């Protein structure tokens, strides 16, 4: 389900249930879901098989502060 389709359906359902005040919260959730789906840790069926090495993404441990 695309986020646009989900948001439209969710707002309609909330209004049907008498909860129109949910709309701005659902819009906030939609923005968070957009960010979540855009994260680079997501696996996709049409891409390479998932890696499971457990290694972090190149931690940048910098130099000494003091």
């Amino acid at each position: 389900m695309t986020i646009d389709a989900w948001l439209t359906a969710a707002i309609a359902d909330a209004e049907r249930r008498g909860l129109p005040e949910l709309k701005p919260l659902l819009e906030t959730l939609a923005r968070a879901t957009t960010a979540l789906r855009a994260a680079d840790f997501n696996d996709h069926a049409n891409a390479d098989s998932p890696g499971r090495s457990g290694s972090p993404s190149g931690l940048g441990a910098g130099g000494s502060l003091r």
Partner: protein
Amino acid sequence: MLTIEEFGSRLRAREVTSAQVTHECLQRIEADNSRLNAFIRVTADDARRQAEEADRELAAGRDRGPLHGVPISIKDLLDVRGLPTTAASHVRDGHVASRDATSIAHLRQAGAVFVGKTNLHEFAFGTTNEDSAFGVARNPHDPSRSPGGSSGGSAASVAAGMALATIGTDTGGSIRIPAAACGIVGLKPSLGEVSIDGCVPLSGTLDHIGPLTQTVADASLVYHALLGDGHVTPPVPLPLHGVRLAIPRGYFFDVLDDEVKARFEEAVGRLHGAGVRFDEIEIHHTADIAPVYLHIVLADAAAYHASALEMMPERYTANVRIRLEMGRYVLAEDYVRALAGRDVLRREVDAALAQHDALMLPTLPIPAPTIGAATVAVGSKSEPVRNVMLRLTQPFNVTGHPAISIPSGLTAAGLPCAVQLVGCRMQTDALLKVALACEPQIAAGPFPRSGNVGG
């Protein structure tokens, strides 16, 4: 107000009794609870009986350990047998706990005296304590300010000298945020260490139980009692020379009040002067923290509340009800993505700690906010209060690492600031050793003892 360590020494030297100190706590409750609303229920008669029994036991040679006879308050999210567990909600009207939560049973076995159940943000679903069926809890440092949340009544009770320690819960920061806002110590142990049996859940996968106390040593004593190790003494602090701390810049310093930042940098300077070595590091994927947290906590909470939301929606406070309703719209595929993100973030923090004893960062980006404020100015920006209060604590609920908040001084207006130390997973004792060593440098300077704030 005595620390638990001081109380224990004086109790065993026969200089004080549990009954005397419990009576003093009850007097403070009677004097200040109408102003602070820290307690939902005060169990004065039971507390006096428990304290007298503790004194009798000690006189007869039975010493239950460091918590013997210590007056403690309990967040009203945890079951204490024979008492209602309200979760600060009318949804729970009529409930009476038939048994103690596992953690509370351990405290009882350790000889703790229970003075009452403390106020909280309804169902622990908020950071300010403003949404409670029993009214707003207030900050002893400034009653026009929030004590933080969700364990706000708990933190206020210790800061105001109504108890020597308190038990809170922490799903996104609900121990550390109010500890920071009220100027006391708050420990979130490693995920899964302290049983959450008998605790009303917010998120069964993010919830933690832990202590709020006046000192790190006291936090260690209560933490071990919660585990069932009632006779353990505080660990020996690490020598500061050789301690290596990592400061995660970027996300963790992007939204930060100037005075909170100043108190943090002063603490860094003092620790450095005492021999601590610092490295600046970067933790990746920090942009994913809030989306990951939100999808997990909303879906977990919605699953628990779905039935009550259908049957008795009017019994919730309006704000909590509507946020719980939001969770009912999280899709399963996005929950799974959030769980995957949680694994990634956990590995990032593990790696950040691989060559350090702890991470060091502020606990709460702002001083305690004014009650009723929806937004707060941070630098030149206006930020939503809830988002900014969760910003620096929720990462370690997602990852499960133990974290402790230690007071680091006051703003010019007299509001507490705090520093957070984060340790390796399942190594809470190692974190406590670092915290014990760092505490005198972090908390240096004049700072009001509990019971001497407000008034």
